[in-house]
């Protein structure tokens, strides 16, 4: 082959390598794989048998190998550079022939020993925006030839390509770090938020010894029922929170009224019945990430026939969340002991729901509620919510009998 042909072939080979390198570093492949391929391309271009790419590890303050070939295990071969050396290398920003010992080789100090052990002949710094991100080190050519000016230029261009890849990866890693940090903070805030709401719910229930756990049950029942009705995850979360806080207005009601066993006077009745409005006034000042919580609280004692309180709304005027809570709130009140009466059996509670179907309770809510109970009794769901909290055993046959005669919605 003529020398001129060889030069042309060499140029084409190197151009092809640069094109492939560009493609490689912009590919969505795993970063480790990209760096490895990039190192192989550098080594293939200069027929080097040994090579390594170091990246600055800011946690440890050293340059650590991220890809190597022909050197066995180089995991422990860390290079420490002083600020002055790093600055000199960054400023020089050209491939350095260690054999020639030209500036800035004399600044390498202890690092020179590590590079010698790796049989490094050429190093090319990986610099972006005056920051030394790492460097490539390769040994001499397999052919034994010297590195020409052209080789140095080619190595310099390849190093620039790899620098950008390293820089992008570092930015991505920093972003990921920040994202994970923020995610952790958000999770903490979320936990605090939920803990606070749970504490509120506990303090509401604490006013009434009979209603311990009532808010939690209303919350859980509302969630499972709304999910059965096809609500989204976010909407279910909203009603779960509304369930926990629906009786928050009772904080303003005298404890003796809440716990009174005998019939209430009209004043006491007014006081107790004010809790949905008081609750609404408290909650409407809070900016919840979920919609409708204050209104669900305000209207959870409305009845679909318009005889409820405080706004005497009729069916479709009552927010759907409030209609759900009206049913599960009454259901829990019926199936737990109260100061003025012992708890009703499930059958008795269902008879009450049946008697008030379409009057107090919305048929569109009662039907899915019955579906949830049926599914739980038949063990068609992994985590039953309502049935385990009832203080009696239910089986499929007796449940069918109990639910007989429910009007079709």
């Amino acid at each position, binding site marked *: 082959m003529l020398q001129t042909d060889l030069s042309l*072939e060499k140029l084409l080979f190197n151009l092809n390598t640069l094109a492939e390198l560009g493609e490689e570093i912009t590919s969505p492949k795993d970063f480790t794989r990209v760096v490895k391929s990039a190192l192989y391309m*550098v080594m293939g271009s200069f027929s080097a048998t040994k090579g390594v790419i170091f990246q600055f590890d800011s946690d440890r303050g050293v340059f650590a190998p991220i890809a190597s070939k022909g050197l066995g295990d180089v995991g422990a071969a860390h290079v420490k550079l002083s600020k002055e050396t790093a600055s000199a290398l960054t400023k020089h920003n050209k491939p350095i022939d260690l054999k020639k010992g030209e500036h800035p080789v004399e600044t390498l100090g202890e690092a020179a020993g590590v590079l010698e052990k790796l049989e490094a002949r050429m190093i090319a710094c990986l610099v972006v925006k005056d920051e030394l991100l790492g460097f490539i080190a390769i040994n001499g050519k397999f052919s034994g030839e010297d590195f020409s000016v052209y080789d140095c230029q080619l190595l310099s261009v390849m190093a620039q390509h790899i620098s950008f890849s390293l820089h992008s990866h570092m930015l991505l890693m920093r972003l990921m770090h920040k994202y994970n940090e923020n995610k952790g903070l958000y999770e903490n805030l979320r936990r605090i938020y939920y803990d606070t709401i749970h504490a509120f719910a506990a303090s509401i229930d604490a006013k009434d010894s009979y209603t311990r756990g009532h808010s939690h049950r209303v919350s859980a029942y509302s969630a499972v029922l709304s999910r059965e009705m096809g609500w989204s995850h976010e909407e279910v979360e909203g009603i779960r929170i509304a369930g926990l806080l629906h009786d928050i207005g009772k904080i303003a009601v005298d404890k003796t009224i809440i716990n009174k066993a005998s019939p209430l006077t009209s004043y006491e009745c007014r006081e107790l019945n004010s809790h949905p409005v008081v609750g609404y006034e408290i909650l409407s000042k809070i900016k919840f990430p979920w919609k409708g919580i204050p209104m669900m609280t305000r209207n959870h004692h409305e009845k679909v026939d318009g005889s409820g309180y405080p706004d005497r709304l009729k069916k479709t005027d009552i927010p759907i969340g409030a209609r759900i809570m009206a049913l599960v709130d009454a259901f829990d009140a019926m199936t737990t002991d109260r100061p003025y009466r012992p708890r009703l059996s499930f059958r008795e509670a269902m008879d009450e729901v049946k008697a008030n179907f379409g009057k107090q309770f919305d048929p569109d809510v009662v039907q899915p509620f019955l579906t949830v109970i049926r599914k739980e009794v038949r063990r068609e769901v992994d985590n039953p919510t309502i049935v385990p909290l009832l203080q009696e055993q239910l089986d499929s046959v007796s449940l069918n009998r109990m639910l007989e005669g429910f009007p079709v919605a």
Partner: protein
Amino acid sequence: MVKKYRNFKEIGDAVVIYSDNYINDIEGEKLEDLCASYLDRGFTRIVIDFSETDLVNSIGVSILIGIIEKVRDSKGRISFSGLKRVNHDIFSIVGLTKHIQIFDTEEDAVNARARQGMVTT
């Protein structure tokens, strides 16, 4: 005894490995693994036949240099055969042709007597 498979042919202590049409990272690594397994099994002569190979990129060159080093470390011998012009040029550019025996055909490579000096076609 000659055992012939799609990618390789075993002839006594020699093996001819047929490389794929493009030697890049994936094909190069396959080739590397195959050579390493033959060295482990005691084969001392490895011939890589490039008759079907249209192109070797820089990653392929790097892997081939690694293979040559490994064979030499194992005191084995390695030669190439069936090189197309373009691949011969690439091996020449990176200086491989001065350091490895290259034959026109795999038969020539297998039948060649061990030579100390490196000869190119």
